[in-house]
Structures are given as structure tokens and as C-alpha cells.
């Protein structure tokens, strides 16, 4: 039987995620030299088919994303997601290349992979530090696909229970918006709740 998070768990996790996203935003601000505005994180316990419904508002079109699998104390997947135009503008600012040029296309995946690596490690590493649990990461993977395929691919069975965390950010001056999405799967979910209990 899987433990269910209480309101206290959710509140604590929201605070921990806020700290991690703040660290990630600070890193992104360091890279682009413009303020990054964060929205309050959204946290829900869901079954796999509900994840798509919750994320549907991100759109049915293809999105640019960097995903990072993690395991250790907790298991799941972290994703940094951008609408394609936002991704192009961000890469152009970071590399100095002109949007829409072949040169920009050639560095797009590598640059976004590094951005995803820094931001997602910032969120997850901060969570690991607060909860004093070690998290191991897979290599970041850049892809362009629908949100349904980006997020729910992998070994999620019908019985998997998911803790979905989503936070949105915007860099107004660059017209760049994006989302950070974390999925904690069952099993790890219990260890996550235990770690939150131990830390508070």
C-alpha cells in the first residue's frame, strides 16, 4: 500500500521545490542577464492517464524539451519544456547566433541540453540537499515532441502513482517562457514522504 501525502507533505514539498526552482532561476538569470519570474508550483497526486489531462494546457503541438531521469532515494523524471519559439530565442541569446539561421539550429540541442542540465540539477540537487538524500541522474536528453510523449514515455504502468510537480517561469524581456515538470513515481514516492517527515 502506498502512502498518500498529507497537506503538510504537500506544503513542505512545495516549499522545497520553491527553493530549488529559485536556485534554477538564479542560474538562468546568471546565463541570460535578465530577470526570471517564477510562478507558484502546482503539486498533485495522479494516475498516469491523468498526467496528460493536467498538462494538456501546455498544448498539443510539439514542444522543445530536455528530460533527465533520476533515481536513488527517489525515482522519476524531470523535464524542462519550452514552446519552440521560446527555445529558439533563448538559444539565440545564449550563443549570439541569429534566430532562424542554420548556425543556430546546429547548436540548439547542445545548448538547450546544457540549460536543462543546469536548471533541472538545480531543482533536484536542492531537494536532495534539503532532504539529505543522494539523487543519481541520467544524462540530459533533448527532444521535440508533444507533451504527452515527452512526459509519459518510459516504464509507467497503469498502476503507477505519480506525484506531479509543475512550475512555470517567464523572462519577459526576451519573450521566453517555459515550464519545469517533475514526476515522482510510486515506491520512490514513499521514500520521498519519509524524507519529508524526517526533515520537518
Amino acid at each position, binding site marked *: 500500500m502506498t502512502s498518500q501525502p498529507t497537506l503538510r507533505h504537500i506544503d513542505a514539498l512545495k516549499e522545497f521545490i520553491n527553493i530549488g526552482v529559485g*536556485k534554477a532561476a538564479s*542560474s538562468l538569470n*546568471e*546565463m541570460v542577464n535578465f530577470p526570471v519570474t517564477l510562478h507558484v508550483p502546482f503539486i498533485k497526486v495522479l494516475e498516469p492517464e491523468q498526467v496528460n489531462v493536467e498538462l494538456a494546457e501546455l498544448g498539443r503541438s510539439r514542444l522543445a524539451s530536455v528530460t533527465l531521469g533520476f533515481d536513488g532515494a527517489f525515482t522519476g523524471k524531470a523535464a524542462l519544456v519550452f514552446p519552440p519559439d521560446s527555445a529558439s530565442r533563448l538559444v539565440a541569446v*545564449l*550563443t549570439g547566433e541569429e534566430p532562424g539561421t542554420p548556425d543556430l539550429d546546429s*547548436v540548439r540541442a*547542445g*545548448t538547450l*541540453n*546544457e540549460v536543462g*542540465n*543546469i536548471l533541472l*540539477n*538545480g531543482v533536484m*540537487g*536542492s531537494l*536532495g*540537499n534539503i532532504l539529505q538524500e*543522494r*539523487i543519481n*541522474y541520467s*544524462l*540530459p536528453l533533448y527532444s521535440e515532441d508533444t507533451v504527452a510523449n515527452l512526459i509519459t514515455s518510459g516504464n509507467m504502468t497503469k498502476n503507477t502513482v505519480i506525484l506531479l510537480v509543475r512550475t512555470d517561469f517567464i523572462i519577459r524581456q526576451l519573450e521566453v517562457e517555459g515550464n519545469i515538470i517533475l514526476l515522482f513515481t510510486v515506491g520512490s514516492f514513499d521514500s520521498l514522504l519519509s524524507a519529508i517527515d524526517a526533515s520537518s
Partner: protein
Amino acid sequence: MASILVIDDSAYARSKVRDFLKLDGHAVLEAGDGARGLKVARDSPPDCIILDLIMPEIDGFKILSALHESAPKIPVIIVTADIQDSVRRQCIGLGAAAFIHKPPKEAELRETVQTVLGARKQ
């Protein structure tokens, strides 16, 4: 001026580090993977190595261990997105001279390199 080897699979990350190091006139060697990094370190030993941790094939921990065995006098500065305290402790335990979070700040990176190179001369 010193010769500094940067081992990182991200060309974007290498270019940022290279730009900062060149401000102090350092000669920068680059390797995009661990195997190439270890070969350059063996064939043209640099004064200092800047090493990423999260890389395909041979990760930074393995490279750090190998360098500690084969070239213990070359200081290694870890520059990584992994901000976990346990990772920092592990790297220092494996012989890293310093540990910096990505994205590296220009002043922090340049000062750390100067400190590490200064300590090496003593």
C-alpha cells in the same frame, strides 16, 4: 599564463569556460569526452584541469579517480550542474582541488584557477 585542459561534453559549457580563462591569457585545451580528456592529460600534461561530472561513457568521477592515480600533481577543478553537498564531498574525497557550480561565474572561476595554480607552485 598556464595551460588548462577543459573536459566537458557540452560545447556551450566549454566555450563559456574558455572565454573566461582566455581573459587571463591561459592556453586552453579542450576535450569533449572522458577518453579524449585522459589522453590529452597523459600526452600533454596541463597545469590544471577543469572537469565536468555528468558526461556519457566515462563520467567525471571515473576521470577524477583515474587522474588522481596517474597525475596526482595536476589540480582538478570540478565545474558541475550537480549541486548536491554529497557530490561535493565525494569529489573532494577523490582529490578535487575545488568545486564550482554551473553556470560558473567569471570572477569565481578565474579566482579559483589562480588560487589552485598558486598553491601548485608552492
